[in-house]
């Protein structure tokens, strides 16, 4: 049994790719009985306890059952392969020759020896990413494992996609990946197809405006790996390519899997027919569909109208390619201006400001509000934050409304409404996100007029088999009302929930997502709920020590992404920080504290200001939705003076 595997392994590259092609071609031709390959004795997740008395007998029975099952599987596979082979030969001889460029070899390939051992062995042949080029290679060296009746491979070059995906996820971002993971965890053997117009596998966005900029590695734009404060390194990709299977292999995957179809856009959705159409006219039908299309960055109209020259020097920041291009630009220009004072704008300003100390790059940030994060933080805190951003080397222009942008002498001239003029080499526009609701029309889905995005219910469902998650979802939050949230953790939470509901959970949005922002190593906060500066707030502050910085927090919890530090708490032991934190003691008033946002006297939002790992308490307070007479008492629950 094990010898066979060794042999198999040696012939793996050839055999795998060719047998994969075989299998998938055969299946595509629809020659086998069912949609799915021969049924493997399903993984019986024991719903009841095994054990009790007569263990030896049970053990023997188990072993016996497994070997019988294996034999049955072997026989059935061989039989169906035989049948398929014969039918295939017939079909080939009658079919008009499409692949005339390649010698029409009846490519005799073989199924791997059909024994239970196959289960794991079959999997790599499906999941091993083999390029289409390899399809021709096996021709030269036939891999004769002719133990069983062979299956024929006719090697068309065009990639044949599955015509049907039980779970179709439109969009390949954070929400989509979280849903895929959730579906796979809950539905054994689920086949999930992610369709994305990006060329990349699912990745996380926060490091694109934070950690990646602080990396020491000069090759970071290629590796996209970042070293977290605690030294632990990880990639921005959620999983490496070997996690996924190829879309062509999805149908044939015995244990299912997650396949990502890149560079394809879903342009039309037929809800009645439960199918979608891609931009290359391929149709894919589905059982359950998730729309997680996120959004595209907004631009200022006057930049769009300003012409080609200006547009060439403008970056809208969202994707990996934007990070790469901005990184390059920032090394080659003398001055860059960021328009926008929200999360993204401020984070990028701080990141670029850091660079400015080494390279002499001038970093300017301008926005209409009075201070950074003006729409989120109460005024006093927003002002304090602005000072911090300035200390990071950024020239901040507040209350700046752009009137016009023109290109002069290969530089950009930005004229503000109050008369100020700014000359710069490059602009980064961080002025918001436009949720992508392209499919609303064809699918007949409702779009929310207040918040934008697809309107869905509390369970993230738009219609019977359609869910929406992430930035594009305008959902009903039982506690906080209808809203649309554009944060990473929300994408994860809503993606997970959508995945759960797609597999029958019927749960409403309940676990409140959080978000965080770091503005340099000294200022960091975590927040939850509705954090809108127009609401009345109550802030309770203490004086901070050197230990209260985002850096120390990640060191303590052993993770780099703070939302993870909550869930991985049980499994990862905290890493004690040996090196003293180099951050200076905060002499300002607002070193650390808690800020409560109130709506009708009920706390609807909380910011933990330089106070970390207390999110569960904050979550609880919001969940309760109670009126608290004295918020100082509530603040005590956070122990802000402790670490």
């Amino acid at each position, binding site marked *: 049994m094990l010898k066979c595997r060794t042999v198999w392994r040696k012939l793996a590259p050839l055999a795998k790719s060719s047998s994969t092609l075989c299998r998938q071609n055969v299946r595509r031709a629809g020659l086998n009985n069912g949609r799915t390959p021969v049924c493997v004795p399903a993984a019986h997740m024991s719903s009841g306890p095994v054990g009790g008395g007569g263990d030896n007998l049970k053990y023997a029975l188990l072993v016996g059952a497994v070997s019988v099952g294996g034999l049955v599987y072997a026989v059935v596979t061989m039989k169906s392969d035989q049948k398929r082979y014969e039918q295939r030969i017939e079909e080939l001889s009658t079919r008009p020759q499409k692949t005339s460029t390649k010698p029409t070899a009846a490519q005799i390939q073989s199924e791997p020896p059909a024994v239970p051992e196959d289960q794991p062995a079959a999997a790599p042949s499906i999941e091993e990413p083999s390029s289409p080029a390899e399809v021709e290679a096996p021709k030269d060296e036939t891999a004769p494992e002719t133990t069983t009746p062979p299956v024929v491979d006719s090697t068309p070059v065009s990639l044949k996609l599955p015509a049907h995906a039980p779970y179709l996820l439109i969009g390949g971002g954070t929400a989509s990946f979280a849903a895929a993971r959730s579906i796979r965890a809950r539905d054994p053997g689920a086949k999930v197809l992610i369709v994305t117009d990006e060329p990349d596998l699912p990745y996380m966005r926060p490091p694109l405006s934070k950690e990646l900029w602080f990396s020491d590695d000069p090759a970071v734009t290629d590796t996209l790996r970042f070293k977290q404060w605690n030294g632990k390194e990880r990639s921005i990709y959620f999983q490496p390519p070997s996690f996924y299977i190829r879309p062509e292999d999805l149908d044939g995957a015995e244990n299912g899997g997650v396949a990502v179809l890149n560079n394809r856009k879903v342009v039309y959705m037929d809800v009645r027919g439960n199918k979608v159409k891609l931009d290359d006219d391929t149709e894919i039908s589905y059982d359950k569909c998730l729309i997680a299309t996120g959004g595209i960055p907004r631009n200022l109209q006057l930049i769009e109208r300003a012409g080609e020259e200006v547009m060439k020097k403008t970056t809208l920041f969202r994707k990996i390619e934007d990070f790469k291009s901005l990184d390059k630009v920032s090394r080659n220009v003398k001055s860059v201006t960021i328009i926008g004072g929200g999360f993204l704008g401020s984070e990028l300003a701080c990141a670029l400001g850091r660079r400015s100390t080494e390279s002499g790059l001038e970093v300017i940030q301008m926005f209409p509000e009075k201070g950074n994060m003006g729409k989120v933080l109460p005024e006093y805190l927003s002002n304090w934050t602005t000072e911090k951003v300035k200390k990071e080397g950024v020239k901040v222009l507040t209350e700046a409304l752009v009137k016009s942008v023109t290109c002069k002498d290969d530089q950009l001239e930005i004229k503000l409404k109050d008369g100020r003029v700014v000359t710069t080499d490059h602009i980064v526009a961080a002025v918001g996100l436009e949720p992508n609701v392209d499919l609303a029309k064809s699918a007949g889905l409702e779009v929310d007029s207040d918040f934008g995005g697809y309107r869905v219910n509390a369970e993230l469902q738009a219609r019977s088999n359609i869910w929406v998650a992430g930035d594009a979802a305008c959902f009903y939050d039982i506690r906080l009302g209808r809203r649309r949230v554009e944060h990473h953790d929300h994408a994860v939470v809503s993606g997970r929930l959508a995945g759960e509901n797609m597999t029958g959970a019927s749960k409403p949005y309940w676990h409140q997502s959080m978000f965080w922002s770091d503005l340099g190593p000294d200022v960091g906060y975590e927040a939850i709920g509705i954090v809108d500066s127009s609401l009345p707030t109550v802030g309770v502050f203490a004086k901070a020590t050197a230990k209260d910085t985002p850096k120390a927090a990640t060191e303590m919890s052993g993770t780099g992404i703070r939302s993870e530090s909550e869930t991985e708490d049980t499994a990862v032991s905290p890493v004690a920080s040996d090196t003293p934190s180099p951050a200076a003691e905060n002499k300002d008033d607002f070193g650390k504290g808690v800020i409560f946002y109130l709506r009708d006297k009920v706390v609807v939002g909380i910011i933990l200001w330089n106070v970390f790992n207390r999110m569960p308490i904050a979550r609880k307070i919001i969940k309760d939705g109670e009126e608290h007479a*004295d918020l100082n008492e509530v603040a005590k629950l956070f122990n802000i003076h402790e670490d």
Partner: protein
Amino acid sequence: MSYCREDGKDRIIFVTKEDHDAPSNAELIADDPNDPYEEQGLILPDGGINWNCPCLGGMASGPCGTQFKEAFSCFHYSKEEVKGSECIDKFRSMQECMQRFPELYPQEDDKEDSSQESAPADGSASERDSSPSAVEVSPENPPPTVNPTAS
């Protein structure tokens, strides 16, 4: 002493450590451990395993998810004296699967096929002999703790 000031609609309170020494009299509503809406920990109220627990990372959803679920379920429901002793085969097949994806499941001791064939690999044998609970997986996918504290 705490100090308070108003800034328009916003109230700001500064407190010293002593101010916050006295326990809080804020009332929180008691949580229902069986609330179906809440996020569950690793073990569900009915005793089953929550495969979607974030603590498992991608273990149950990756290419070796099926093997992982089988092995772990077997272990979880095992009533043997040495818990999970009848699950060795399942753990082995899970191990074999994981070795095919070293990128996803980096092993401490990356043994080759040959040593696998002869005897249980050294690295994993010690764990498996005692109890298959500690499965060596990548730091990104933290080992599932079998005695879960429902978080």
